[in-house]
């Protein structure tokens, strides 16, 4: 009998697992996809909000594509229970699906603070396609939007809101914006940049209630003036969708604990993406990296292992990039490590800032701010990722980079980083034929 693989979750992790399975077995096994929603890409929802793309563009796997991949589907269904000992998955319509191995890839959901009115009319999250549709319908020219939360998720939709000519105010409970993406210097620069583009930012603001007043919203705070809004977006964090795994015997910490093969504590149950707590490439410690690249890598590695390959994953690199009004903001790895040796430099005339973090002569984290039309911004974004990912000691080039964090390219090329990176593919296969490695 053919192996029966069950993939729970049709997001980036789940779909990449399916593709990896099919790359290896060419359709020989049974693959069943259980997904509460028709598969789409969360990454591109901001472009749908900004009207840069049509809604149809967000879908990642059409029914025809899934059929071509020989995948059976339970779309619109949610997993409600897992019996790992018996190898059975229960769905919300009473269906029981039997499996030989299963992938937990149910992602995460947006959460809102427990304040009165946070679930009221005109208050939205922006996480799922359905929620994006709600925001799309509610914003037009002149709409006053208040964004609660100034983290990565909030920042991914700032450009779209501004492109729709809405008025935008941001409130953040922490003393500064982007607390998990940039340091205090970076945050100050981004706040200056936002002010120049007409975006009001209020930090250290604790929301206490959202009241309904004649079709408008009135936000109240522990201190300071109320804020009026037509539409409120709660970008106040996410949590993993793992309730259905409770009682299954699968070990869960902050996420499902997985080994280097993306296997959980149960031999034939894997986890990938936002729900998985796997190895961090830089620190070697277990971590939940709820980011798109980790979902993709986890999915591909889990899929390859489910298809019978033996692929050990090196770990995921924390990374984020967001652009606001042509300012790129990116960070990699352990950019906030208090035990690291840090060097930083600012170029005010280019509105650019760099920070590099070192353990010994190894680059373990980096932060970069710069204009998107400055060619060295995108070039260095990639090379700093490469240096952090390669993890090799940089010897004398450490001193060079510490003196001038703006000359990344010389250090990257001269330290032979390209040759070190080429064998480091996600599935551990050589990237170029042996004789061609530079």
């Amino acid at each position: 009998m053919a192996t029966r693989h069950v993939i729970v979750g049709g997001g980036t992790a789940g779909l990449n697992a399916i593709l990896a399975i099919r790359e290896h077995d060419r359709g020989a096994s049974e693959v069943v996809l259980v997904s509460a929603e028709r598969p789409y890409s969360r990454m591109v929802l901001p472009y749908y909000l900004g009207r840069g793309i049509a809604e149809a563009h967000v879908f990642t796997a059409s029914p025809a594509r899934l059929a071509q991949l020989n995948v059976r589907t339970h779309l619109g269904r949610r997993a409600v229970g897992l019996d790992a000992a018996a190898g059975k998955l229960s769905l919300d319509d009473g269906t029981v699906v039997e499996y030989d191995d299963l992938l937990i890839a149910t992602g995460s959901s947006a959460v809102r603070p427990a304040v009165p009115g946070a679930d009221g009319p005109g208050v939205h999250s922006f996480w799922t396609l359905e929620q994006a549709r709600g925001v799309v319908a509610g914003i037009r020219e002149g709409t006053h939007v208040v964004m609660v939360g100034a983290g990565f998720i909030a920042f991914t939709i700032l450009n779209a809101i501004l492109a729709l000519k809405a008025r935008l105010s941001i409130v953040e409970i922490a003393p500064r914006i982007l607390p998990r993406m940039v340091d205090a210097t970076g945050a100050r620069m981004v706040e200056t940049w936002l002010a120049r583009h007409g975006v009001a930012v209020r930090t250290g603001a604790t929301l206490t209630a959202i009241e309904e007043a004649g079709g408008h919203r009135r936000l109240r705070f522990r201190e300071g003036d109320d804020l009026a809004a037509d539409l409120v977006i709660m970008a106040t964090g996410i949590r993993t969708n793992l309730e259905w795994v409770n009682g299954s015997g699968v070990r869960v910490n902050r996420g499902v604990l997985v080994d280097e093969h993306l296997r959980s504590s149960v031999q034939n149950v894997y986890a990938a993406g936002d729900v998985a707590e796997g190895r961090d490439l830089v620190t070697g410690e277990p971590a939940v990296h709820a980011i798109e690249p980790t979902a993709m890598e986890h999915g591909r590695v889990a899929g390859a292992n489910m298809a019978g390959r033996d692929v050990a994953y090196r770990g995921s690199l924390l990374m984020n990039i967001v652009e606001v009004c042509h300012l790129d903001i990116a960070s990699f790895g352990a950019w906030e490590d208090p035990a690291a040796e840090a060097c930083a430099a600012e170029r005010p005339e280019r509105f650019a800032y760099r920070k590099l973090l070192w353990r010994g002569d190894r680059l373990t984290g980096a932060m970069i701010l710069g204009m998107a039309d400055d060619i060295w911004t995108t070039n260095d974004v990639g090379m700093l990722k490469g240096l952090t990912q390669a993890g090799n000691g940089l010897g004398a080039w450490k001193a060079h980079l510490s003196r001038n964090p703006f000359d990344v390219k010389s250090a990257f090329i001269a330290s032979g980083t390209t040759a070190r990176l080429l064998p480091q593919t996600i599935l551990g296969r050589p990237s170029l034929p042996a004789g061609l490695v530079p």
Partner: protein
Amino acid sequence: MRCELACSYMQTGTFQPARSVIRVSPFEAHTSYAPYTCTQCAEGWCMTACPVEAISISPVGAKAVLDDLCVGCKLCTIACPYGTIFYNPETRKAFKCDLCGGSPACVEVCPTAAIEYEEAETADWLGSFAAERSARHREAQLAGAEAR
């Protein structure tokens, strides 16, 4: 730096080295130089990272951006560890070396023949991985041509 000029002309139709996807770096106080561009790495960090599959494999084996599909999210620019995928703020699309469809201009114009172009065998494991992404490239090109 003739390669940079030729490359930018192929990429954009104008001579703007800032839009070139091959870049020459000076070393040792300009006593030596190294041209640097995309290695077309087999698994394609940019290609696997793209959330809308806008990067696929062109008929000459280059990882190429399909403009009609790219939304400009920049994920590829942080996924590529070589720093060889770029972003054009005017078009709001990613761009990279596509090997000029099989006859790279940088190779043709280099006066010292420092850049060579050779077709290399790909590894066995690339079979179905590459086949699907090559097929997607062909389908997207056809769909784009029909739409236009």
